[in-house]
């Protein structure tokens, strides 16, 4: 019974972790950008979804759509306003671009946090679930929302896989991630490719943000934690590796759940942190990372 409990509960939380980290790893894989404002984008999606859906009263569906749209817009703004100017700047040596992107997105994340706290205060809210109620799953009472979240998350991840592996745009994305210079020579506009990736990223982060907000709640104070856990999972799985991210998300999700169930809820995140240190020590490129 307890084992089943852990299995179901861990699955839900892990799936959310995976979805939340997916966009983060995608954007790194294709354009080499570590977006430390990632948590900010997730929370923008959730707060707007709550504001439109609950506060203004338009209902869960419109709220979710509005949150998604806001997140895509914010992702585009992140790219056009913060990341692209750095990538195109002649004054920044290529070797140091990574750190400049890190610092700049970090600052951008702080700005998002402050702006959200100003607009909505920092007290957390929950996004209205698309479907309420619970269902009995092998004797474990499980909220339907949890199953829905898992389903949407897997649909989104499947969609991403199809996009990358089965469409023309996807093939260009793949090519861009492997050899950006070669792609320009072939006449593809690298800028357009990056723009598309950021759009896809915005959509993924938007879905993740709204779903996270309906399961875990959201608020400006969540931003550093969300960025941190996405960062952790992605590095643990291997930067840029989508399958590594998925595996790492499930490992971290289950370790946290098992710790909370069997040891103590107050030590929930400690074992995962220690595991991370150990893995990076033994295998610095992460579980499935390339060096």
């Amino acid at each position, binding site marked *: 019974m307890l084992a089943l409990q852990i299995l179901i509960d861990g699955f839900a939380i892990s799936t959310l972790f995976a979805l939340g980290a997916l966009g983060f790893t995608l954007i790194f894989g294709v354009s080499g950008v*570590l977006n430390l404002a990632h948590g900010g984008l997730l929370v923008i999606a959730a707060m707007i979804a709550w504001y439109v859906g609950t506060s203004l009263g338009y209902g869960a569906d419109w709220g979710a759509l509005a949150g998604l749209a806001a997140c895509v817009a914010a992702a585009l703004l992140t790219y056009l306003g*913060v990341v692209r*100017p*750095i990538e195109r*700047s002649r*004054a*920044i040596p290529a*070797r*140091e671009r*990574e*750190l*400049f992107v*890190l*610092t*700049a997105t*970090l*600052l*951008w994340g*702080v*700005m998002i946090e*402050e*702006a959200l*706290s*100003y607009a909505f205060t920092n007290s957390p809210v929950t996004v209205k679930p698309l479907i309420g109620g619970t269902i009995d799953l092998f004797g474990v009472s499980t909220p339907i929302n949890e199953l829905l979240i898992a389903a949407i998350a897997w649909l989104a991840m499947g969609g991403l896989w199809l996009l990358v592996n089965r469409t023309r745009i996807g093939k260009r994305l793949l090519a861009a991630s492997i050899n950006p210079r070669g792609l320009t020579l072939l006449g593809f506009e690298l800028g357009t490719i990056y723009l598309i990736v950021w759009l896809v990223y915005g959509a993924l982060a938007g879905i993740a943000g709204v779903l996270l907000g309906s399961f875990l709640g959201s608020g400006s104070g969540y931003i*550093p934690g969300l960025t*941190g856990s996405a*960062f*952790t999972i992605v*590095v643990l799985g291997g*930067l840029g590796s989508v399958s590594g991210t998925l595996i790492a998300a499930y490992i971290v999700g289950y370790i946290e759940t098992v710790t909370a169930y069997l040891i103590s809820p107050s030590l929930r*995140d*400690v074992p995962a*942190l*220690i595991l*991370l*240190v150990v893995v*990076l*020590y033994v295998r*610095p*490129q*992460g579980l499935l990372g390339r060096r």
Partner: protein
Amino acid sequence: MLAGILVLLALLPLGANGYILGVLTTAFYFAVFAMSWDLLFGYAGEVNFGPTFLIGLGAYGAGMANALLHAPVPLAILIGAAAAVAGGVALAIPALRLSGPYLGLITLVAVLLLQQAIVIFAGVTGGEIGLSVPDVLSIDSGPNYEYALAFMAASGLVLTVIARSSLGMILQAAGQDRIAAAALGFNVTKHKIMAFAVSALFSGLAGAFLVFYLGTASVSAVVDIAIGVRVIIAAVLGGRRTIIGGAIGAIFLIVAGELLRPIGQLSTFVVALIALTVIVLFPDGLLGLLPARRGS
């Protein structure tokens, strides 16, 4: 010119009031945080996201030595600095194997674990409500200001000398191409550990001083990741690989925050916006904007 500015700053208590001195005192300690960080990042190329791991060790080491062991302030500060150096060496070990974002994450985790440890051992650390220390440097702003200024000037001098010495050169070489540096016969391992130890020493000292200025050690003041973020932003904003840029960035951030107080809650937002603009448009930071450096 620098000496002139320092003399001017040293004479400031004659004319300025306690409030300005108070703001600058905090800013000076932050300046040392940022300069120490720049030694690791700017010269050695180590992405250290956890400056507050070192700062926190120094601060809590000193605070606990004073509050629990009743060590006098100077001794407590040394104990804090020793704790920070031990932490710095411990961080150097993963840094020998990892680089870039991977090291960044390890240093971030170090901060989180330190934070957890402080909360778990609340009995001796004061936990999340913090630790009051019985002694302070001074309750008057004048002496506090002079201590901080002297400490910042001395730290800046030592760090600059180290950075421009052979150690700095080797670190820079190793940061760009480790294998080549090793092939030239430099003991990269030894130098990297040295760099971490020096950076930790000054971070820890500054953390310890800050505790005896504030009269309290708390997670939100010396360990929280947000503080580390401010240190990094200060160093990059001021101008990386310059040491003194860190000081300029830190002082700028804190003074700007104070000047923007009238706009209340949004002041942090505006400061972040200014910093972002500078970083994107002028990557060499505030120091790069000075006309004197333009030519060089």
